[in-house]
């Protein structure tokens, strides 16, 4: 029975993901903005990072810019230690270290079941664009999000479009506008009033 489940769960997850992602994925660069964090930078669940330089203390980190990220912009970091190494006892520890309750765009439902085992570490980023996107699509359907002008997020809701106003790039997601910015070398999005 366990074998049966193990065989089919990944396929099922893939189906779910595909179904969720296809309509939700924005056209080309239309938006979505693959959530990119870290490189060192992790999601909001990171309490510290290794200092990368001898001669320049990471003085500003932990200062304002980082605080913004820590307090408002919660990226899911899913460290999935799915130990499915041919053992009878499946240890599937899906630990969402940081679930942004206020803004369900980051809630990750199935996106973390990646590759049906194996370690998919290091959080949200690059390839998880698909996984997170899928999760976002699932979550967003059931959620009305309240966005506060001036708040920062690390990922955009689905179906955004790039718009230009006054030579600056914005992402329009429904009736909400986000201004992408480099915050300490990572991309974040500030909720802004309509630039028009």
């Amino acid at each position, binding site marked *: 029975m366990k074998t049966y489940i193990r065989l089919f769960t990944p396929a099922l997850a893939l189906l779910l993901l595909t179904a969720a992602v296809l309509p939700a994925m924005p056209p*080309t*660069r239309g938006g979505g*903005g*693959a959530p*990119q*964090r*870290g*490189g*060192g*930078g*992790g999601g909001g*669940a*990171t*309490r*510290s*990072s*290794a*200092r*990368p*330089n*001898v*001669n*320049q*203390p*990471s*003085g*500003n*980190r932990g*200062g*304002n*810019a*980082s*605080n*913004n990220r820590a*307090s408002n912009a919660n990226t899911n*970091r899913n*460290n999935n230690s799915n130990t499915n190494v041919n053992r009878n006892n499946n240890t599937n520890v899906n630990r969402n*270290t*940081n679930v942004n309750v206020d803004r369900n765009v980051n809630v990750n439902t199935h996106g973390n079941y990646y590759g049906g085992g194996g370690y998919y*570490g*290091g*959080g949200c*980023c*690059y390839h998880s664009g698909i996984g997170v996107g899928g999760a976002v699509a699932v979550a967003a359907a059931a959620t009305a999000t309240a966005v506060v002008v001036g708040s920062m997020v690390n990922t955009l809701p689905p179906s955004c479009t*790039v718009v*230009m106003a006054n*030579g*600056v*790039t914005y992402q329009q997601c429904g009736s909400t506008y986000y*201004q*992408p*910015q*480099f*915050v*300490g*070398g*990572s*991309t*974040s999005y*500030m909720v802004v009033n309509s630039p028009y």
Partner: protein
Amino acid sequence: MKRNIGYTIAALLLATGLSAPLPAQDKAPEAMNALNYMGTYLRTLKDFQVEAVVTTEDVLTDGQKVQFGSKTNILAQLPSKLRVSVEGEQKSRLFLYDGSTFTLYARRVGYYATVPAPDTIGKLIDVVSEKYDIQIPLLDLFLWGGPKAGADEITSADDIGPGVVEGVTCEHYAFRQPGLDWQVWIQLGDHPLPRKLVLTTTTDEARPQHTSVLTWNLAPSYSEDAFVFDPPADAHKIVFAEVKDASAGN
């Protein structure tokens, strides 16, 4: 044992009524000299290319550490041109500086931002850190041997002994300073280049580590275009968030 001696000296100083003693320091002169020698040599380089294989660690809120890998490629023409490409598991970045403007390009998301820049790499390092909280990767290579090198910070220096990095014979040194223990493997001979760096952050009890293994090319061939940003058609211009005063709150 070192510590005991330090305390003894401190006690003696106090007992003799001298002013408050400095914290115990134990700096092997050969280690400090090697650092100076490396820095002085680095400052003679006019242009170079370095490829760095980097691993770094983050500490999660519960103390668990996670590691990330990246590859950094630096092309520098002193004093005022720099190209740094970072290809990481999580992000891909291009830092470009042509002596008058600085651009950061996030390739995967297709965003870039450009700002006017000062006229040397040294000043650029300061400005982007102070204004935008951006650290130029491997900035130490540009600061050692110059006025911004924080040799005063060092409280302990040791010569660990011979080492080999990627087949290159080196001498291995270890230093301590507030918040940071660090090690450097310096190539032996007339080209005392740093070949490996290990930085251990000591302000977090989990002690996350940042390691760089460097491969040097002291005769790079390149075009001046390498330092100029030519935005791809699908790239979107964005802004740098400026660091606000700490007093501004949040």
